[in-house]
């Protein structure tokens, strides 16, 4: 299997947690994983972008036009990196109605920021919520709900309950 994901957001939104989680899932499944993520200065409130490559790869970045999926935690940052996607790739993004209708892609929108402000989801679990949405709508996603749940539990048992709850809110969205 070869599956490449671009993950974007704003510094502080927890993209690194998602990278760790999916790397963990690959480990559990015995599939190779390589990727890279944003730390430090570039992370401070700025655009963050992570690359996740599941399957047999050698380089940490994704080539332009090669990704199967883009997960976007903030709408403006989603729009910035469409050039990494293959034709008819999937996009799952946090956004309100003003988000453009990207017809060439399988586009899934959910207004997670609004839910966070309203208290429907914890702002700290917005990342996992979006992952739940992804699991629901992206058919060829490489991991199952159970595999993700297991990864969450292993990675951070303290917050596992809250995170799994957020995951299911995404799955039921």
């Amino acid at each position, binding site marked *: 299997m070869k599956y490449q994901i671009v993950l974007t957001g704003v510094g502080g939104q927890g993209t690194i947690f998602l990278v760790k989680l999916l790397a963990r899932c690959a480990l559990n499944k015995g599939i190779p994983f390589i990727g890279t993520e944003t730390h430090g200065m570039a992370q401070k409130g700025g655009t963050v972008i992570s690359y996740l490559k599941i399957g047999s790869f050698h380089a940490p970045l994704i080539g332009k036009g090669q990704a199967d999926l883009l997960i976007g935690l903030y709408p403006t940052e989603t729009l910035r990196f469409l050039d990494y996607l293959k034709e008819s790739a999937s996009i799952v993004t946090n956004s309100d109605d003003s988000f453009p209708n990207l017809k060439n892609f399988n586009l899934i929108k959910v207004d997670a920021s609004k839910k966070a*402000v309203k208290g429907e989801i914890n702002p700290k679990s917005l990342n996992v919520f979006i992952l739940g949405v992804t699991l629901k709508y992206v058919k060829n996603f490489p991991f199952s709900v159970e595999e993700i749940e297991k990864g969450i539990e292993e990675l951070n048992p303290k917050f596992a309950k809250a995170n799994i709850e957020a995951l299911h809110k995404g799955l039921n969205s």
Partner: protein
Amino acid sequence: MKRALLGNEAIAYGLLIANVDVMAAYPGTPSSEILETYQKLIKKLNLPAVAEWSTNEKVAFETAYAAAVTGKRAACGMKMVGLNVASDPLMSSAYIGNKGGFLVISADDPGFYSSQTEQDSRYFAKFARIPALDPTDPQDGLKLAILGIEISEKFEIPVLLRPVLRVCHGRQIVDITDFEFKGRKGNFERNIERWAAVPRVPRLKQGISLLAKLKEIEKFNYKSLIEPQLKKLKNTENLIIASGTSYGFALEAIEDNHLDIDIIKIDMPTPLPVNLLKKLLGRYKQVIVFEETYPLIEEQIAPVANVRGKLTGDVFNIDEVTHERIAEGLKNAGILKKNIYTGKGFDDIPAPRKPTLCPGCPHRTVFYGMKKVFGNNAIYPSDIGCYTLGLNQKAVDTILCMGASAGLAGGFSISDKSKPIIATIGDSTFLHSGIHPLINSIANKHKYILIILDNNTVAMTGLQPTPERTGGVSIEKVVEGCGVKPFVLEYDGKVETTVDFFNKVKEAYKNSDAPVVAVVKEFCTFDKENVKLPGKFASVDPQKCTGCGYCMDTFGCPAFEWKDGKVTVNKYFCVGCGVCLSGVCPFNAFVEDKR
């Protein structure tokens, strides 16, 4: 055991597998997690080893080097600009050598993601005449950390491990072999000829033996690292030589484009056995070299083969390696017809999102108050850390290197006497290399204000502890010991208090003929122990907001957004620090948003 690890974590495992029992480092992106992980592991596994955060890279180097002099295995860690600071002991230690293995880890940042420059630490190794190792990915980082220690001990020479950002902050499933950690007992054996670096006779001897060692290491490089790869060569028309991350990218480009081309990975770009490679390289019509960031390998082999690379203008010369850039290089060399790495971007890309101080960060209030009191005419030298982002509030005029805000302030004070000079520096940076310029300025009567933004942590690189927290070092007393009594403000999240404080500082500055120092005691919003956010959220009364943009320009909390010509607060980003409620808007448009 297999684990999904960050490159830095993998390197830390490598050090333990290699039985490194002393490590010292100064944090700096992208290197910080190496010591962090090493420290965590020795604690968790209860290993007889020592991990220390040092006050700067020179100190880290010297601490670890001393351990290697006593026969222990040791490592120091830093980012490449930190190696500049440690370059003094590096040069001498190359001559003198070590008994136990000694690894100098310097993390490079191709692409300037968190740095002022894009230096290639491998050149420092060449300059100092020590071997450099250039890992491709986290797994390779682990492998070369071990190899580095072994080579260092075998040849009694410091070895440089140079992982780049995409290795340090690359994540991969890494295979960790079982290991049994045995620390060593250090034993300093007096040998003045060797350890006391005085000219000339013993030094000349060491210099000559260093050159001989390098010859030996060159041979080792060929026999152990290059020769095993030769069996796989198919004798194609062209050859790719790659090192570091470039190797992984080149492999992918070969696979993605189904190219029939030989490739060799260079683990040790210096010293390179050029003479031994001559025959092999000469067999190929062309040799294409991919490396980050400078043409170190290329320069060395250019005389013995038909080489295409950075020097010939065929390969990118700045910024990090990408698939597109590898493909472009192969295209230029006539090996690839078309660059397949293209995609279609969005036509109307939103304005770039610049790094900013976090919502609720006290630095923002300090910069705001400072600018309000000292105005636009002042010169604002600053330093390296989160507060560099005071750029956005136009409260930062210069950024050169760690500690330089005080150094430059001193220089400005003797060369432009017409303007007030307000320098800012963080606590860790002050202790790293800000004390010396302050002492210098006090001695030479340089007149400026130095504001130490003291949040008691190294925030930018992930909250490493400072000497204040771990050892009770008092910045106020250090400053006082240098010769001036600092003004101290306990940050309270209010604009008025901050402005009052700086007015007091300004008064003192008028009558002073030496530096005036102010210490603002604050917190970092990620620092769970100290953070004090009152939970007072804000919104904007659209009736009162005139759209003048004053709050955006001078304060610029990331939660502020433009909407239809007025400012609004993005509720998702507001953390409830309440500062904007305390007098940022000239029309009092910010009102509390009771949630």
